[in-house]
């Protein structure tokens, strides 16, 4: 009998309080940062008269270094902050556009003025869902690609629970820095490389090509969806299995009837194979058949070779 989960209590505990917090935050939200009207461009020299520290660090960024080259489109203070004449006269922060304090639309549009290619990534990309470009990039940073952090650590800043799952005993080696989140995920949207239909199954098979088939003898879930058996981020069970072998198998298949056999505890000296001695245990058959199905069904993702039994050549044992 399945225990009923008290689902109805969950919103009351977590969602409602957070919803109230959201409303409070909404009320406390600062006014929208806007580009001042009637301002003119004054050039970066005027900006650097006061913001000289930014000028020095900006020169080391990818934008600043592109400027030194002189041939690429010039990126200066006003490329992102808009015309600064009013601000240079008044000195008031409100008189110049600050993308860092703008909402995600204004901020993203500012970046997309030049980085139009990202805008062209059709659909609701990460860019829209996240808080804007500045969630991951710092324009004044000297880091590669202006990233707040390098590698998967950047992603874990928001996706903390995924980092936790990667700490489980079986996992793709992301925390070890051997693979990165972007090996599977396209952070700016778009299709995955080396896949044609961009399905999840195809994404897995783009690296695990040995599982793609076609095989003579198939395992139906392999054709269906890898996540029926595996959690790609990590799991307690070996091989990223969502449940340990044999229980993952037993959620669809019955056990061999040998499991119900009583055994004996004695030295093995059977007539047919006297060289394979050892100690039989009383619960031997249960241990044999209840430990790991894949010990015998080794070719669980598919095989071209028939198993030994005539009545079950597709047993995936060979």
């Amino acid at each position: 009998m399945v225990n009923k989960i008290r689902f109805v209590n969950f919103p009351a505990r977590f969602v409602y309080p957070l919803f109230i917090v959201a409303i409070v935050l909404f009320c406390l939200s600062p006014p929208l940062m806007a580009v001042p009207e009637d301002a003119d461009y004054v050039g970066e020299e005027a900006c650097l008269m006061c913001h000289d520290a930014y000028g020095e660090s900006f020169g080391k960024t990818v934008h600043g270094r592109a400027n030194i080259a002189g041939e690429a489109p010039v990126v200066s203070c006003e490329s992102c902050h808009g015309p600064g004449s009013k601000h240079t006269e008044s000195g008031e922060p409100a008189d110049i556009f600050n993308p860092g304090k703008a909402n995600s639309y204004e901020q993203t549009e500012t970046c997309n003025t030049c980085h139009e290619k990202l805008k062209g990534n059709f659909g609701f990309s990460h860019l829209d869902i996240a808080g804007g470009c500045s969630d991951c990039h710092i324009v004044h940073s000297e880091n590669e690609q202006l990233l707040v952090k390098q590698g998967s650590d950047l992603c874990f800043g928001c996706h903390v629970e995924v980092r936790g799952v990667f700490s489980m005993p079986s996992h793709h080696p992301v925390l070890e820095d051997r693979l990165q989140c972007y090996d599977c995920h396209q952070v700016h949207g778009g299709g995955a490389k080396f896949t044609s239909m961009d399905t999840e199954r195809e994404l897995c098979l783009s690296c695990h090509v040995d599982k793609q088939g076609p095989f003579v003898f198939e395992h139906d879930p392999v054709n269906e969806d890898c996540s029926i058996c595996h959690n790609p981020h990590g799991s307690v069970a070996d091989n990223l299995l969502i449940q340990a072998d044999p229980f993952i198998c037993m959620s669809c298949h019955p056990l061999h009837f040998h499991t119900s056999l009583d055994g004996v505890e004695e030295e093995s000296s059977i007539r047919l194979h006297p060289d394979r001695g050892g100690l039989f245990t009383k619960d031997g058959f249960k241990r044999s058949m209840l430990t790991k199905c894949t010990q015998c069904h080794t070719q669980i993702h598919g095989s071209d070779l028939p198993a030994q039994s005539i009545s079950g050549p597709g047993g995936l044992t060979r």
Partner: protein
Amino acid sequence: MNKLKFIIAILVTSIFIFTAVSIAQIEAPDIQTTFRIGGHYTTLDDYYKKAGEFYYGKEDPFPEFGLSLYSMEDSKSFNFSGDYFDKKNMFGRLNVMASDILKGSFSYRSFYRNKGTDLLENLMAKEKPDTLVGKSVTHEDTAPGADYGYTRHEINSDLEFKIPIDNKHDLKLIAAHRSIMHKGTEQKIVTMHCSSCHIQSHKVDVDRKSHNLSLDAQTAFDRLELGYGIEYNYYDSDVKTLEVFYDTAQHPNTGGAIGEFDARMNYNGEKVEVAREPKTEKISHRLNLKIPTGKGKLAGAFITSSIKNKWNDLRIRSNGGLLKYDVNFSPELHLLVDAKINRITNDEIFIDVAPWREGLTGGGQDLDYTRYSNLTRTLLSSNAKLKYRLGPFSDLFFQTGYERIKRDDYPEYGLNDKTTKFYGELKFKYRFVRLSSLRAKYRFTSIDNPFTIFGKLLEYRGNGTLFPLPDNGKVNYFQRDEIRYGNATNLPSLKHDIDVSMNVKAIKKLTITGGVRYTLEKNDDLDTFDYERTTLSPSLSFNLLGGPRWSFFAGGSLFKQTANAPVAFAMFDG
């Protein structure tokens, strides 16, 4: 294969040549150099070796080194970054821009994966007999104490040309390559079934290779964007397949009844191949276009691919198309709709097996069959996504979609079953100051007839009448199997997903992130049992960006998953 290796070699060599040319063209290059040195110490106390799948059970200090080189001038640049941990674990990447029209990148990485050892100690059993007869299972390890694992090497290279057509238009050509190689050793287990109940473990070499090669061409004519891509993949192993002598079929205890056991086996008393690595070839073509229409853009693609098993010429063919329409009705309202269709056919194959107990009383049943595949299917899906800007700092997202999988052979010929899925999602995002935001999501998914294993689990009521086989007047255990097992799935027919997270910028450099995710999956549609799985995952983290050169991160998350699912135990012997 040699032609493929030649093309890959040309591609990789080109990137290095362009790198050299690019660096040479930078006059007095200003190279930013970063050298990193560090290390870590691993201690293992009562730690099951397999748990260290990538830190493979070594209790040692591990040094780490890293080097970055970066230079940029005009439209030329190079950027190298590399990390060295040990000879089996390293990483390097090189990005080069030789000019406005030429870009290249090359990367290499490797890591070692410990595959663990199956000790086989659980495989010793003998049925409690009154006499010498009875079932038994024994094991034999041909390489006792062996360590198993392989090093995974991955090489990626990309080369991008931008060829000017006229003042406004370019033709972009992108050649990409990826090779993944596994080198090491693995354990292969051989099961001699029933006739001797003898399990053998063998240590075998691993030398698997997967090569991808793709070529893309993209161009734009005024408002129309066009693209074509071709991709080729080849998978093979350079290791000779393991060959093992399968014991002569006879009673595992007494050595008798050779004829009886032999008549139940496809092969015995001979050497046959075991665990043969696949040898496959995949080729795919993709044609895509994008065209602005009014306030939106329409995109379409046609994809066709074919995967061939080179051992036996079996093929999977796939043809698909997709359409996307993306429109901004106003600055506040953004709509995206898409539809996709994909037809996959997996070749059928006739399986010819020996007759069951041929020549013996009651035997001679013909068990030949045709292997149909549940991969043969038609997939249809459509999605609509709506983004509405509630205010300057808040967004509302709504998504809904429908998916239909129609399998031709599911999983037995003639069932013609299909799965349909419908989902709806509502998401709210609120951003109140820079780097501070709140996101809340609720997703509902209803699945009609999720992938189900038919007739493989549990006894069910009203199981019909068993008739003895002709000639021997007995009911066989496989006949009992057929009528005693029902349908099962561990997939939900109903799913609720709630995800709430918040980033709060507590002080200028410190961001606190907290969230909770809750998922409930249920399936009470089957007659045989109910299935339910819940996942609760709250998390909290602190992220301090102290400056451009240092940061501090601390966080924790709890992942709790509870599943109520059946486990089937056999209730009788034979």
